[in-house]
C-alpha cells in the first residue's frame, strides 16, 4: 500500500483549537507525523511588559480558559515574592480551593472530549452536565464561569460568606455523588477499555528525554507533582496523594485522570474543613523593587513555570511562561508511529491538548 498524507487541522472536528498535523498513513497504519504550532500565538509575554502588574493579572488569565486560575495564581505568587508580602491564610485557602475545583472541571472536560473522540457521545454530555455543577460553584463565589478574576496581587478579591461556604459544602457532596457515576462508567466500560488499552505506550525514559510533566508523566511511572515537590501554602499543610501508574498506555492516561478527579474532590473537602478566618488580601504597592524570581505550581496538565524580572518600575521587564502542554506536543509525533488511524483520536485525547497554553 502506498503512503498518503492526511492533514489533521487546523480546522478539524477532532480539535478544539487550531493545530496542524500532517500524518503519513499506509492503509490503516500510521507511519509518523509532523506538527505545526503557532496558530494561536498572541504574544502574551511581550504584551505583559507593556502593561502594569495590576493589568497583567487580567492578561495572564486569558492565556488559557481551562487553567486560568492557576496561571494568575503563579503570577501573583511571583510578584508577591518580589514585593516581599505574604498572603493571609484565608486567602491562601481560597486560592487552593479554586485551584482544586479547576482541576475537577478540567478533568471532567477532558473526559467528555475522550468520550466524544471514541464515539460515546452520551458520556460526553453526562460528564459536561456534571462539570456544570463545578462551574456553578465557581461562578457563585467568584462571579465568572470561565474567567474567574479571583486573584489580585496580595490575595483574592472576594471573601466567602457563611451562605457561600454552606453552598460549597452542599454542592461538593452533590458533585461527588454525580461524578462517581460517570467515573465508574469510565473505569469499567468495556468498549473504552478495548479502544485504549495497549495503545501508544510511552516509556519513562522517553518522558524524561522530552521533559514531559503532569498526568502524562505520572501515567508512565515518573513521580512528579508540584503540589508535593514544591508546595506553596496551603499545600504544605494539606495531605496530597500523588497517583502514579506504571503502564504508560492510553488506558493509564485515562485512569490516572479519573483517580485524580476523586483526589481533588477529597482535597476540596479538606480545604473547606481547614479554612481559617481572617482577611483575604493584603495591600500591595504598585512599584515592584528590582529582582528576579521563579515560581511553579501544578496546573491540571502539569507543571507551570513562571520567570519574572522587574526593574523597579510598575511594569515587568521580562516575563517568561513555560506551560506543560508544549513538551507533550513535541512527544506527539513520536507517539503517532505504529498505531492505527482509528487510534489517533484516542492518542490526541490522552495528551489533553490545550494549544492556547502551548502557543501563548
Amino acid at each position, binding site marked *: 500500500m502506498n503512503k498518503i498524507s492526511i492533514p489533521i487541522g487546523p480546522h478539524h472536528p477532532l480539535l478544539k483549537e487550531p493545530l496542524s498535523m500532517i500524518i503519513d498513513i499506509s492503509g490503516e497504519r500510521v507511519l509518523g507525523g509532523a506538527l505545526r504550532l503557532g496558530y494561536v500565538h498572541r504574544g502574551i509575554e511581550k504584551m505583559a511588559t507593556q502593561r502594569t502588574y495590576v493589568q497583567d493579572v487580567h492578561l495572564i488569565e486569558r492565556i488559557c480558559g481551562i487553567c486560568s486560575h492557576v496561571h494568575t495564581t503563579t503570577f501573583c505568587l511571583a510578584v508577591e515574592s518580589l514585593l516581599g508580602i505574604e498572603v493571609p491564610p484565608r486567602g491562601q485557602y481560597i486560592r487552593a480551593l479554586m485551584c482544586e475545583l479547576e482541576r475537577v472541571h478540567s478533568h471532567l472536560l477532558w473526559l467528555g472530549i475522550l468520550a466524544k473522540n471514541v464515539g460515546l457521545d452520551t458520556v460526553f454530555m453526562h460528564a459536561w452536565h456534571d462539570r456544570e455543577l463545578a462551574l456553578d460553584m465557581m461562578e457563585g463565589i467568584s462571579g465568572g464561569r470561565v474567567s474567574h478574576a479571583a486573584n489580585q496581587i496580595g490575595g483574592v478579591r472576594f471573601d466567602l460568606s457563611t451562605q457561600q461556604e454552606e453552598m460549597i459544602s452542599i454542592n461538593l457532596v452533590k458533585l461527588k455523588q454525580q461524578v462517581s457515576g460517570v467515573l465508574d462508567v469510565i473505569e469499567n466500560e468495556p468498549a473504552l477499555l478495548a479502544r485504549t488499552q495497549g495503545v501508544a505506550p510511552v516509556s519513562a525514559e522517553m518522558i524524561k528525554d522530552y521533559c514531559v510533566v503532569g498526568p502524562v508523566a505520572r501515567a508512565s511511572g515518573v513521580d512528579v507533582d508540584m503540589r508535593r515537590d514544591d508546595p506553596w501554602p496551603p499545600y504544605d499543610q494539606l495531605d496530597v496523594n500523588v497517583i502514579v501508574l506504571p503502564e504508560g498506555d492510553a488506558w493509564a492516561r485515562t485512569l490516572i485522570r479519573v483517580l485524580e478527579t476523586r483526589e481533588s474532590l477529597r482535597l476540596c473537602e479538606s480545604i473547606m474543613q481547614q479554612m481559617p478566618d481572617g482577611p483575604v488580601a493584603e495591600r500591595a504597592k504598585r512599584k515592584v523593587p528590582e529582582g528576579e524570581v521563579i515560581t511553579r505550581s501544578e496546573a491540571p496538565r502539569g507543571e507551570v513555570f513562571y520567570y519574572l524580572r522587574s526593574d523597579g518600575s510598575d511594569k515587568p521587564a521580562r516575563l517568561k511562561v513555560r506551560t506543560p502542554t508544549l513538551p507533550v506536543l513535541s512527544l506527539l509525533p513520536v507517539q503517532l508511529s505504529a498505531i*492505527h488511524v482509528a487510534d489517533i483520536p484516542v492518542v490526541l485525547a490522552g495528551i489533553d491538548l490545550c494549544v492556547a497554553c502551548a502557543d501563548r
Partner: protein
Amino acid sequence: MFRGIFYLLFFPGLAFQVVCGLAFEWMDRKLLARFQRRVGPPWYQPLADMIKLFSKEDLLPEGASGVVEMLLPLLSMSAVLTAGLYIPIAGFTSFSFEGDLIVIQFLMSVPTLAYYLAGMASVGIYSFLGGGRSILQYLSYEVPLLITISGPAVMAGSWSVAQISQSQVSMGPFIIFQPLGFILATVGLIGKLKRDPLDIPSASSEVVGGSLTEFSGAKLGFWYLVMNIQAVVGIFLLVNLYFGWSNVALPDVAIGVFILECLLMVAILSAVSAVFARLRIDQLAGLGWKILVPLSLVQLGFVILMGV
C-alpha cells in the same frame, strides 16, 4: 394502471416513505437528545433541514465529476424506494412475488456501493478513506445478515416477505423462535445504516464526513433522504420478518400494533446508539467473522433442525 401509479408515488411508495423517513429522523434525534439531557429538535426540523439543503449552493471541487455525484444519490434513492414497495405495511401488500426477499437485500446494498463510489468520485483525502472503510464494513456485516435473514424464510417455507409475514399468523411471531436471529439482524441493520456503534465510515472525529465530506446542496439533501428511507425500509423489513403475526391476525388494530412495533425498533436503535462506543475497523472485522457468522450459522442450523 392508475392503481399502480398510486402505489408508486403515494402509498407505499415515494410520498409515504419520505414522510416516514423524516419522522424517523426526528424520533431518532429527539430520543438521542433526551438520553443526553438535551431538549432535541422540534418536529419540523428534518423537513426544515431538507428545504434548507435543497436551496443551498452546490459547490463542486475541481477534479470531481458533477454528473457522477448527482447520479449516485438518485440511483440509491430509487433502489431503496423500490425495495420498500415489496414490504407489507400492516398487512397491506402492493407488489409481492416469490423471491422478493433476495431482491430487497440486493436493492438495499446499492446505497453502500454508491457510498463507496461517492468517496472515490470526490477529490479529498477524507472521502477516499471513508469510502474504503465503508466497503470493509460491508464485508463484515453483510454475510451474517444474509445468513440470519434466511432463518425466517426457511421457517415459513417461502422467500416472499408477504408470505413470511402471513405465515406468522398460524405459527406465531418468529421472534419467539429466533430471538438470537432478531439480535443478529438488528446488529446487521445497524451496520447497514452506518449508525453508532458501527458508523466507522463517517466517524466525524477521524474522517471529517466520510464519503460525503464534499457534498453540499441538493446532492447532500438526497443522501440524507436515502439514509432515512433506508432506515425506514430496514425497520419495516425486520418488523415483518420477526413480528409479522399481528399484522393480519387482528385487522382492526393491525395498524396500531404495527406502529408500536416500529416505534420499539426505533427506540432500540437509538438506545444502542447512545450506549455503545464506536468500534475500530479491525475490531469490527473480528466481531463480524469470529462472532456474528458462527452465531448466525448456529441459528440457521437450529431453524433447519426444528423444521425437520
